[in-house]
């Protein structure tokens, strides 16, 4: 399969300011050397806990956040080198859907106006064509043309998220970044939105980057998974292989922490001690060593390299060195 997006050694470092003169005092590494490849028509999921840098990654890939270094190759073009105008044109191919369907829609705009805006920004179309496209896209996401006249407060959470998806789709993009698209929704509504995303992907041959903390959702929706911790990629692999045979101790702990809806399987969980350290002051060596149940002496001092374990499985862990 053809790669549509290739990210190479992507970094985003934020200066940590201190004192009244704002002296730079070290760097917070939100993204520290992330590489990944997403093939056309695929769903690549990024999982991680708060502070892992997963949302930063989603936004940086679209250059909504400017990377510190590294390259982002979309459809053969390194978009980190593009000027403002080419980048603006590229936005018709790359779109984003946000977590919070309440915060990401303008409360004073009707749904129709929200959907009209991207069309007006990028094309000059007649009013009639615009209306037709709005009505068509509303039907695609499971709403009706009447919804174009509604305001966000008149819609339920699930309907708002459908509007957010329609806004991303109206420019007919090839690639969409979803940032926790279903975590604010109730389970029954969550299932409606997830099945909608699946249908849209096959109908419109879309490629997704799906950022989420919910491993059950990720397992359901994705083909490839990347596990992040403190700005670093811990493991990448095909979804089924990664979930049935996780390589990295962090992935193992993350998977065993999920409470399953099956009371006969009150599993012996690997409960990690401690909490995610601050990205301003990450641990030396492997960033996970302070919480790792399998930590060895070298983990505290030597940063593990990114290793290829089998055909398409990668991890960064000293257990697999040699």
């Amino acid at each position, binding site marked *: 399969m053809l790669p549509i997006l290739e990210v190479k050694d992507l970094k985003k470092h934020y200066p940590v300011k201190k004192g009244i003169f704002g002296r730079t005092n070290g760097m917070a590494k939100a993204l520290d050397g992330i590489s990944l490849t997403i093939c056309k028509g695929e769903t690549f999921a990024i999982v991680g*806990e*708060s502070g892992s840098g997963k949302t930063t990654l989603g936004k940086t890939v679209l250059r909504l956040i400017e990377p510190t270094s590294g390259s982002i190759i979309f459809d053969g073009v390194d978009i980190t080198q593009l000027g403002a105008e080419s980048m603006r044109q590229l936005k018709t191919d790359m779109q984003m859907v946000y977590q919070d369907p309440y915060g990401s829609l303008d409360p004073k705009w009707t749904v129709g106006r929200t959907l009209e805006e991207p069309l007006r920004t990028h094309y000059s179309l007649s009013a009639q064509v615009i209306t037709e496209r709005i009505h068509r896209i509303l039907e695609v996401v499971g709403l009706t043309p009447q919804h174009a006249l509604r305001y966000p407060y008149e819609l*339920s*959470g*699930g309907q708002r998220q459908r509007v957010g998806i329609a806004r991303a789709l109206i420019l007919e993009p090839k690639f969409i970044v979803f940032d926790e698209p279903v975590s604010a929704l*109730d*389970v*029954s*509504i*969550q*299932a*409606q939105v*997830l*099945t909608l995303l*699946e249908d849209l992907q096959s109908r419109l041959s879309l490629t997704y980057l799906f950022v989420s*903390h919910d*491993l*059950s*959702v990720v*397992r*359901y*929706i994705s083909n490839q998974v990347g596990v992040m911790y403190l700005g670093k990629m811990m493991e990448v692999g095909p979804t089924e292989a990664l*979930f049935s045979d996780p390589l990295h101790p962090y992935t193992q*702990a*993350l998977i*065993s*922490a*999920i*409470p*399953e*809806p*099956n*009371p*006969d*399987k*009150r599993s012996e*969980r690997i*409960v*990690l*001690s401690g*909490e*995610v350290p601050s990205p301003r002051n990450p641990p030396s060596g492997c960033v996970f060593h302070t919480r790792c149940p399998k930590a060895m002496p070298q983990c505290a001092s030597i940063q593990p390299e990114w290793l290829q374990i089998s055909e398409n499985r990668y991890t960064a862990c000293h257990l697999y060195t040699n």
Partner: protein
Amino acid sequence: MTKLLEIDHLSIEFASPTGPIQVVSSISLDLEPGQTHGIVGESGSGKSVTSLSIMRLLPKDQARVVEGDIRLQGQSLLGMSESQMQKVRGNRIAFIFQEPMTALNPVFKIGRQVREAIRQHSKKSKRAAQKEAIALLSEVGISSPEQIVNVYPHQLSGGMRQRVMIAMAIASNPEILIADEPTTALDVTIQAQILDLMKKLQKERGMAMILITHDLGVVAEVCDVVSVMYAGQIVEQGDVKTLFREPKHPYTVGLLNSIPQFSGKEKRLQAISGQVPHPAEYPAGCRIAARCPSRMDMCDNIEPTLYELDHGHRCKCHLYRGDENVTYS
């Protein structure tokens, strides 16, 4: 067995400009000592209103209990005076909330807040209370409690704040702990720590627990008995193993089918179509009828009763008419 807490056909109305709206309708549940009862449901199902009503924390000018009773060891909580109720709150029934940041006072140090929780219910000197606060913080798994008593809530992570909340809740050795979505705001690895802690404390102290959550995984992990709520009613109730193994109500089945199963082969998710109706627009018959895949003609007009199946497994659905041993309500 003795009933520690008994909710008996409780109905609650809220005032609205268009007249009173019933948000909780005739719900009943029993809690035995040491038991964990899960209340699970989607937004707007009435689960939080139910839990707040046990503590009598609903706004008096807006909410009104129109029917039913809540009894703690046979004594009606609804009939108590405010000062009697104050002795129940915190002392015998404690409460932890979803968002520990809003439940803690941002301008006081942790030590002072935990001390206050201790001294509210016992006549201890400041020094003795401080000592007990440190012991409690250590019991909830805080590794350096002597330092934590001197910090402010904003300096702690979400998981640590929730541990502090739990320490304050167990300060008076309550018989019942009500936890409203205690782990929803936390990351999975921290959620696992907090659930483990709650199970451990419950076992050590013999507390009964009411756990309110939207997460069926959490219910399966910690609860003994479950009530599934929908639109202000309990639609299914029973032992956790039976209910997950053989869910009876189409809504419970639908809920279980809407979560991506973590183990086993994937199949397409079966979403429940439509959405929860607004409390002012509850239909006359079964409240789920419009979304139910097994809907029959009678469902639109006749409200099903909560049929008793076996071993305390109850289900509010016309499909089980005639299957029941005894009619329950």
